[in-house]
């Protein structure tokens, strides 16, 4: 009998937390190749993407101060996601991760938000960076 390959299911996700307009968003560190500040950014050879635009923030809520860039390398594409600032890097256990409520799942344009996490009682929207970059 052929044995199924053993799947390793991580029970914790190392998550980069960014704060935007008092809301917190988390991204899997495994999807992020690097973090740059504005003065370090060499944009040559990278596609530039604005986090706000990709997540469909309302226009009046967009902050103009973009201080950091997240490097995403998924060859052949190299992308720089512009964000305003970082907050923390935390390890989130799967027991703290909750599915997107059905009403939100049905209406949101931000399909890259795949779940919500509760960290110290605070709600964090978990964003799949690869899905965020899909057109």
């Amino acid at each position, binding site marked *: 009998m052929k044995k199924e390959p053993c799947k390793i299911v991580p029970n914790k996700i190392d998550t980069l937390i960014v704060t935007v307009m008092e809301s917190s968003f988390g991204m899997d560190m495994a999807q992020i190749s690097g973090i740059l500040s504005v003065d370090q950014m060499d944009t040559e050879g990278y596609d530039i993407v604005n986090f706000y635009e990709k997540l469909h923030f309302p226009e009046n809520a967009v902050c103009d101060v973009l201080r950091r860039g997240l490097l995403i390398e998924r060859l052949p594409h190299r992308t720089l996601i512009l964000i305003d600032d970082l907050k923390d890097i935390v390890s989130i256990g799967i027991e703290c991760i909750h599915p997107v409520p059905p009403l939100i799942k049905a209406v*949101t344009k931000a399909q890259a938000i795949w779940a919500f996490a509760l960290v110290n009682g605070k709600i964090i929207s978990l964003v799949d960076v690869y899905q965020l970059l899909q057109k």
Partner: protein
Amino acid sequence: MNQTDDSFSKKYIDKTEDLLKVARTRKKEIIDLDQKLAKFVIFLMGQSYYAFHGADVKEIRHFEKISFVPGCPDYIPGVINIRGEIESVLDLNEFIRGIPTLETSKTRIIIAEKRDLKSGILVDSVIDVLDLPLNDIKKPISTHDISLRDYLEGEIPYKDKCLVLLDIEKIFEKIIL
């Protein structure tokens, strides 16, 4: 018939009429104990009174911070944490009347659940939770605002007002479908 008989007859007739009056009044006060009662949650949106079936309401909470979720329509301001569970919040004012609910000390979040769908529903204030006869639910009148018609279940007299009974399932379906 002499005068004494006339006087007796008049007295008798007056007495009978008085008794009939009392009986008619009492008849109005009689409550049918067999009629089925149901619980309703009565709330305010703008100047109008609305109601949900109490069976669909799990909890009524004070206003709390709603975490913004981008990409949602204005009638879904975000999510809240209810004892370790994440639930969406629907602004019913915005959804039905196109006017966002203003946060005051009376603002409440009604946690409603129907057929596996659960959400917080933001309303201006909750007025009452009480039992009313199911027979009191009348068909909704056609003069209601067009924005309401898809979610109307009926109307219920309440004090000197008329409650608009909303169907939570129809509201959820409208969003999901």
